[in-house]
């Protein structure tokens, strides 16, 4: 089944390896080399804190979440119901700015899922924009499959993870 074409790669050596061929022993390889020792430095990421939340104005609609089908970023009718009340809240309180985070389930590749999560967040952003919300109030980002809500590998968990969160 695993049938690679065998390709022989030309041997190449860097300067730390010295190959000496002795003339008296033509077919024997004699080598001397020194182990290369590159150092490694550990770095600690300084994580940016999210700006302090204004809980009073946010209490109107915290943690609104809409869900999507596999490999799809179209809003469902149920999602639109959820977003309608969010649009109303945005219109009632013009100081609110929101961040829409798109997510994907674990199936498929991480980078494609990052792009897919971003498209899901953009779908939500487009809905707000089409309903008269200024785009300067709408931030968009994706976590792809990196921040699942449920850790299982079943369809129930997958469905919960294919989402866009508004907060």
């Amino acid at each position, binding site marked *: 089944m695993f049938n690679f074409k065998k390709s022989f790669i030309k041997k190449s050596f860097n300067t730390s390896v010295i190959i000496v061929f002795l003339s008296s022993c033509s077919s024997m390889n004699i080598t001397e080399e020194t182990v290369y020792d590159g150092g490694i430095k550990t770095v600690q990421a300084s*994580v940016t804190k999210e700006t302090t939340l204004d809980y009073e104005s946010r209490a109107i609609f915290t943690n609104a979440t809409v869900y999507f089908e596999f490999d799809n970023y179209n809003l469902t009718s149920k999602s639109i119901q959820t977003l309608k009340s969010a649009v109303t809240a945005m219109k009632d309180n013009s100081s609110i700015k929101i961040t829409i985070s798109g997510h994907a389930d674990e199936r498929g590749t991480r*980078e494609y899922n*990052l792009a897919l999560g971003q498209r899901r967040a953009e779908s939500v952003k487009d809905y707000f924009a089409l309903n008269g919300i200024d785009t300067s109030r709408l931030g968009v980002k994706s976590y792809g499959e990196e921040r699942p809500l449920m850790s299982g590998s079943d369809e129930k968990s997958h469905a919960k993870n294919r989402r866009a969160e508004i907060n």
Partner: protein
Amino acid sequence: MKKITFIFLLMPHLVFAELILEITQGSEDPYSVAFLNFEGSRKITDQINDIVINDLKRTGEFKIYNNSQILSVPNNEEEIQYDEFKLLNIDFIISGAVVSEEKFNLSASYNIYDVRKEKKIRTSKVFGIPNKIRQLSHYISDGIYEEITGLQGVASTKILYVTELNKNDKSLFRLIVADADGANEQILLQSSEPIISPSWSPDSKEVAYVSFETGMAKVFIQNIASGKRDLVVTNSSQISSPSWSPNGKFLSLTMYQDGNAEIYILNLKNKNLTRLTKHYSIDTESSWSPNGSKIMFTSGRSGSPQLYEINLRKSNAQPKRITFEGNYNAKASYLSNGDGIIFVHRSKSKFQIALKYFNENFVRPLTESKLDESPSISPNGNVIVYAITENEMGLLAGVTLSGARFRLPAREGEVREPSWSGYLR
């Protein structure tokens, strides 16, 4: 969403979750090799014997006989009874010794004998230092491998990967570099936010990766030795999927500033960005052909993720679709000879690593589990390391050209996103 920010203590020398190597299946037609125990103090030679034998076994191309499995153990070249080895169908004999053991110098020598030719075919010496016995041993393994197979060995190369540990509802992500056998793990970066898509520079001195530490996906380049790191592009949108050009001068990236994933090429010297794709669907996961003339990428333009290739040498070249098999083909990398690609392929409900040659119109599945991803090829083109999910845990697995399989499960936490270095020796 509640965001938790916390600081982990820096413990670079702490011994932690090391990967454990398991060899699950070997080649059908291996070289038979008698590996005589190295001579010298047992404290050192026991380690060398273990590491070299494991390295050779992991290639899947060797059947190893130790001192107790041969008819008599020669003490020197003159004592080798080639007929005894021929009786056991042994092809090669390896002997070695620790030749100097001082405070700052640990050196070993080894010899390879061809049983059929009844003569010594190689004698080698490796100079190392006492606290780097593993590296010294990997150099010996690679010397043996290249003498017998004609291919450059990868025991002395490294693998980069990401781990995630979850404790008390908090996640700790680490970018780790380890020897190709999973040992000698060292942390390059730790963060409470996700890290994905690590990739080596062609000279293996730097790594590029995606970190979410600023609140969204951003691409960083980090120097391994100094720890110096930089954001490659500073703008307000997310950036991901870095891939180095073979000459190290360019980095292809996925940028989201157009409201959609599009591929750009960044000139690392003057920071100029050139847009490569323009389509309303997703374009991401770019990777360079070995000679740098083409880029393969994943695109959703046909309605499902498929692989497309774009020729950089033609002006206004249109992407050419490469995969037509099934409804999910993504994250490709070129074989080192440029004859084909390995990628993630969905077959029924399973995601597997697959191979496709450009002169064939079908896909060859290489792996058999359910959620396989992130394939990375060793620099000699002989081994593929990839991530699998088992019992809802991520771990690394490998498959070799000769059909050998191995796994690198971690003792603790999830392991994912492997990336193989270039040659370091």
